[in-house]
């Protein structure tokens, strides 16, 4: 089952890369392009200074990581003569663990977050 398993392994590896790239800014001081909706401006910085959105940058970063890893992993996996059920199970377990860990981390963090509203004088 080389061909289907190769696709699954590549998709699983790309999923792990996606999750790592999306979650990375939450753990490291990475400068990202933040979008300031009130000013229609993009600013590259680690922490925003007002109401700003980092979702676009993080999503783009994650999609880029997914594409690169998928493009590299698929030909490598296809070249393997055989990919057994053990390798398939391992990739599935790692991908599921990465997604579950990221989801739980964000759910936990967001549950205890105290949002900072727009200062009333700006309104």
């Amino acid at each position, binding site marked *: 089952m080389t061909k289907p*398993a190769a696709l699954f392994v590549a*998709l699983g590896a790309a999923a792990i890369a996606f999750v790592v790239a999306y979650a990375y800014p939450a753990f490291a001081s990475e400068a990202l392009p933040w979008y300031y909706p009130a000013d*229609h401006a993009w600013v590259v910085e680690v922490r925003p200074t007002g109401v700003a959105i980092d979702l*676009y940058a*993080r999503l783009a970063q*994650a999609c880029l990581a997914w594409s690169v890893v998928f493009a590299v992993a698929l030909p490598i996996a296809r070249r393997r003569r055989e990919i057994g*059920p053990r390798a398939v199970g391992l990739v599935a377990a790692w991908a*599921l663990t990465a997604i579950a860990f990221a989801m739980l981390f964000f*759910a936990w963090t967001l549950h205890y977050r105290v949002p900072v509203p*727009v200062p009333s004088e700006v309104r």
Partner: protein
Amino acid sequence: MPPEPALAGAARALVAGHAVCALALLVAATQHARLAWRAAGGRLDAGLARLYAAATAATYGATLVLGLLAYPTFRYQVRGLFLDRHAPWASNLFDTKETAVVLGLPVLAIAFGLSRLLDDTRARALAWPYAVAAALVAATAWFATVSGFAVAFARAV
């Protein structure tokens, strides 16, 4: 006069389209998950499963894109000016939903990719990973839709 974010004038239409696509996604993703679990149990309807996998991917993508277009208005006018001050639980629930939807994207890719291989007899060992991926996509769609409506009841665009 408060600042006007990009696409603020179209935000209500975008959110209405977002909600309609989300409801279509619920139907497609639930049906896809049901078919994937049947396939894992040995009762494969490859054509229908492929159809619902494509419908799930299309509605997931459309819902996400419309949400991303409406997001600047929501972030400033709804979350920044109201929810963060009066309903912080809704702000946090919205961001949890947003994270779940984004993290669901690679799972969607797995479910969609494996649905294309259902006729391949060599792919039988992947029936369970396919069923789990389809179920996770459906669970994400349900969580996102229910929490999206809960946030909208607190304050909508």
